[in-house]
């Protein structure tokens, strides 16, 4: 039997919070403060050939555009390009820009706007059967104890304005 030695070469809990305030990019004022600046930055960046090639590859893999837009704007926040609220406002424009690139490249893409598909009947029946079996076993293992109602004694009123007995 092998005994694994404990490894102590790991970060201490809370070590990530030990940096000085302002040492991280997102703790400083953002590079772009307005929506227009941020949109033009992202549109110019998405329009670059290298970025567009990588983006089209990822889109072809079936990653939804909503997920991609969220990831890109989160990366922008982490790099200190813009604030969180500007990033969220920019997301629909980002999705449209990415779909524009996918359309121009002739690639089929998933926008991520479709409703989640319903479970197939067989799978739903199987889940229901599993749940019923689990319910029966748990009922057999743990008998439910009925709680007895606790009678509360009437407490005497102790306020200043209470009536005397």
């Amino acid at each position, binding site marked *: 039997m092998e005994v694994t030695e404990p490894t102590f070469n790991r970060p201490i809990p809370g070590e990530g919070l030990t940096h000085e305030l302002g040492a991280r990019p997102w703790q400083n004022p953002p590079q772009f403060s*307005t929506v227009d600046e941020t*949109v033009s930055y992202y549109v110019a960046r998405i329009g670059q050939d290298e970025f567009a090639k990588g983006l089209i590859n990822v889109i072809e893999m079936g990653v939804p555009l909503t997920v991609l837009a969220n990831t890109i704007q989160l990366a922008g926040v982490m790099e200190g390009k813009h604030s969180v*609220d500007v990033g969220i406002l920019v997301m629909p424009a980002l999705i449209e820009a990415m779909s524009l690139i996918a359309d121009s490249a002739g690639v089929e893409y998933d926008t991520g706007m479709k409703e989640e598909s319903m479970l197939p009947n067989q799978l739903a029946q199987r889940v229901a059967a599993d749940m019923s079996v689990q319910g029966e076993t748990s009922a057999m293992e743990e008998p439910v104890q009925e709680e007895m109602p606790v009678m509360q004694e009437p407490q005497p009123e102790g306020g200043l304005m209470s009536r005397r007995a």
Partner: protein
Amino acid sequence: MITNPAKNLMRSFSRIPDITNQKQTPERGLLSPMRSMMRNGNNSMKEAQPLVDAVKAYQQIRKDRLEIIDMRKRNGSN
């Protein structure tokens, strides 16, 4: 828990009518100078300005995309 707000945002943005071609027309009437003065002092539009900018950018890119798709369809059909 909503981890990705993009879906809801896209739905909301797609329901907003087109605001890219809105032009401010000069008002007519006796009270028009007073109205314009009152509007200049109103800060509600300034607060919503980032959202308006975001919707305008979204609608402009969407327009361009639809135009490109239309052009392709026309070229393909011809």
